[in-house]
């Protein structure tokens, strides 16, 4: 009996080692969460923004990641910006005028603006910034926005004239991109841009831990007035479920979300804001060979598609069906001039007209690495097309394999998430314009379309632009060039003690409201 007791005692010691140590840390760790929460909310603590992505580069000319635009948008300004209504508005340029038949654009620059290094912003910085964008070694993918720019001429310290090779009204929209941010000429000359951001925006660069966090501090000499928040830390929280947990633990004040299943299930104490993203989902078609070369076969696909159901299946109804121009002053309305809603009998008629009354089959590529919803979109559309007798095979590819095939046009159809812009020329000049950079993946070209795009780019008056861009939408949907599907929401979950923040749909300025945000 005594031996048994001793055995138990030994067992207890061993178990104590395993379990007591395990529980002790946890139990004591749980002791004071509320005290911690209060500490985080104090004014001296940084304002923490959580995102599942991380800041990947510091050079605004070469960034492509959404969070890079948002983060560096707090530091840098552009000549002109898009306001929340997606209209071009003054930023470092206070006004502008087109002249010489839209072949010259003159900007009047804001005075009294200083870079973080203390130097004054002048026309020399504009010249140096735009030259840097155009230099091949910079590798700025947005250089195509200013491909018409042949010369930048300073007209005194606070005015600059852009001389264009051909009439190009859309260059103004292109200049809103943060890839064309205004940088100090001195920093460009000494090559420090990629290491230490130096802008004229409301916040100044403080620190960057690649993959983990990016911190900015208030710029007291910001030309738009001193921001209320002293420090903003953009923290990488790799999964959106963990962002929701961090919000509930009061560790972050603002969570940036894209997954509707996370955003719509947060406790009601959090204010969840949503805006349509500046991107759209479409089924891109290679229209040169096979059954998809037949316009009526493509039209059959367009009419068999039920966009509303795809929105329901892919993003839980958290999006809207869109046409070629998803938002802004020239938004496509209706979303398709051919079949705005699903029409199976019309689809079958088009199949007959195509000489394929029994349907046809094709293969569509997706990549859940690049767009997690693409597989759900494809499955939903597969069953819809089957109702008309069209067989769509689905091939899911790894991200890089998809990119390679996409760039080479090595696909019949591709589910894609493409960037949108309020200016249809910026959106589609690259795909369907004359000498388009992305003409191969676009898979379609026609002189009529090229002419429309060119006319839209050159048109100076809004009524003319509206008419031309409306014709563009009709041309694209009538010919079922691609099948435009939907635009999903982006979300911002805001802690209850945060005031004055509103999420903007504009990529580069979506966090700009932080300059007037306060925390109680």
């Amino acid at each position, binding site marked *: 009996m005594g031996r048994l007791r*001793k*055995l138990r005692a*030994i*067992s207890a010691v*061993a*178990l104590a*080692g*395993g*379990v007591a140590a*395990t529980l002790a*840390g*946890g139990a004591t*760790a*749980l002791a004071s*969460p509320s005290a*911690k929460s209060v500490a*985080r909310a104090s004014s001296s603590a940084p304002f*923490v923004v*959580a995102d599942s992505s991380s800041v*990947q*580069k510091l050079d605004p000319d070469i960034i492509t990641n959404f969070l890079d635009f948002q983060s560096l948008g707090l530091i840098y300004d552009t000549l002109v910006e898009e306001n929340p209504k997606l209209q071009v508005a003054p930023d470092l340029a206070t006004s502008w005028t087109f002249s010489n038949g839209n072949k010259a654009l003159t900007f009047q620059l804001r005075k009294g603006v200083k870079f973080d290094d203390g130097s004054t912003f002048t026309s020399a910085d504009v010249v140096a910034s735009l030259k840097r964008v155009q230099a*091949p*070694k*910079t*590798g*700025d*993918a*947005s*250089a195509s926005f200013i491909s018409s720019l042949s010369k930048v001429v300073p007209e005194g310290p606070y005015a600059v004239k852009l001389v264009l090779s051909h009439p190009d009204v859309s260059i103004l929209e292109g200049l809103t991109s943060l890839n064309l941010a205004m940088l100090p000429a001195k920093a460009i000359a000494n090559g420090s841009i990629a290491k230490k951001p130096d802008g004229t925006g409301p916040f100044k660069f403080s620190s960057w*831990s*690649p*993959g*983990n*966090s990016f911190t900015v501090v208030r710029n007291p000499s910001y030309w738009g007035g001193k921001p209320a928040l002293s420090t903003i*830390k953009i*923290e*990488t*929280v*790799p*999964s959106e*479920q*963990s962002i*929701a*947990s*961090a919000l*509930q*633990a*009061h*560790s972050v004040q603002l969570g940036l979300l894209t997954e509707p299943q996370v955003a719509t299930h947060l406790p009601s104490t959090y204010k969840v804001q949503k805006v349509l993203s500046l991107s759209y989902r479409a089924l891109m078609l290679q229209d040169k060979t096979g059954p998809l070369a037949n316009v009526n076969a493509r039209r059959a696909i367009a009419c068999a598609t039920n966009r509303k159901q795809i929105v329901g299946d892919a993003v839980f109804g958290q999006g809207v069906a869109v046409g070629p121009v998803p938002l802004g002053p020239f938004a496509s309305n209706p979303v398709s001039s051919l079949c705005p809603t699903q029409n199976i009998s019309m689809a079958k008629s088009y199949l007959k007209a195509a000489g394929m009354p029994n349907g046809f089959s094709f293969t569509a590529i997706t990549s859940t690495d*690049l767009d997690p919803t693409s597989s759900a979109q494809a499955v939903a559309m597969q069953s819809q097309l089957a109702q008309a007798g069209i067989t769509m095979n689905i091939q899911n590819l790894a*991200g*890089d*394999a998809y*990119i*390679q095939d*996409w*760039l080479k046009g090595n696909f019949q159809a591709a589910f894609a998430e493409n960037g949108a812009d309020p200016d249809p020329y910026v959106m589609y000049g690259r795909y369907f314009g004359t000498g388009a*950079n*992305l003409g191969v*993946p676009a898979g379609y070209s026609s002189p009529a379309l090229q002419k429309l795009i060119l006319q839209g780019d050159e048109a100076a008056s809004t009524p003319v632009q509206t008419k031309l861009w409306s014709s563009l939408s009709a041309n694209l949907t009538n010919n079922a060039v691609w099948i435009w599907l939907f635009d999903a929401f982006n979300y911002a979950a805001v802690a209850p003690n945060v005031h004055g923040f509103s999420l903007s749909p504009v990529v580069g300025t979506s966090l700009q409201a932080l300059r007037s945000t306060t925390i109680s």
Partner: protein
Amino acid sequence: MLLGIVRRIVSMAVTLFGVAVVIFVVLRLLPGNAVTASLGVSSGLLTHAQLAALNHFYGVGEPAVQQFFSWLGSTLTGNLGISLASREPVSTLVGAALPITLELALASMVLGILIGVGFGMIGALHPGRWQDDVGQGVSVVGLAIPSFVIGTGLVTFLSSVFHYFPASQGYVSLLQNPWLNIQQIFFPALTLSLGIGAAIMNTTRAAMLEVSGLNFARTARGKGVSTRVLVWRHLFLNALVPVVTMSGIQLGYLLGGTVIVEQIFVLPGLGRLLVTSINNRDFPVVQTITLIFATGFVVVNMLVDVLYTIIDPRTRR
């Protein structure tokens, strides 16, 4: 024994060279390169001149053999290169992440051994009784439920019920804030330790049961040796070899397990850096981290072999 260690070190070097070759080849077989990984489909917008400049900048198109030996030579001289994505030195990135993963691995291992050896011994000393059943239950949970499910469940439960998620405040080191650091490491370590503990527990239990039925154990009991001495000196020491083996194997796998757990618990360790770097086709970082993981694995295996000779002198021959 010394000769054995030297042999081991040589074989370790050969293994690591093999790992370096394999990871180098595998990375180059993946579609895409640093330019497309960096710009995605936007790389289609580049002009030929831009693309040529970027290819030159990222070293795309250089002969693979030249790239390999250039990288290997630099690595051996301590120069790990520059990250293609962030343009930061690889040594800086890895230097910041490595201590976090090491701390997590160590804490997980300690917890795993405590849980595994503790429950394993109790189960072996009370076979078929409720104490054994509890241990078996813990073992089944640890083995059957993947660490990412346990981790996600823990994070969701603690944050929604207790508003508690210390790691989301941003990682702090043990020196900066010891108390917060312990809280940040404890739960991911607990998550990883359940799987490790379960494997060690089963090994400990089986080994203890096996040795307790051997002649020397019966003799010791017959001689009236005290239970404490019987369990710790005779049974446990003789059961230690398979337990150490299993612990070594688990430590190797643990390094891989940190990849997922660091993602869930927001720890900026090597695992998270590896995932980000693979996505960015950041070859210098991926190669370095893979080599570190491989080195950790072979070093642990070597240490286990050395430990055998200490635990069981018969293996020195």
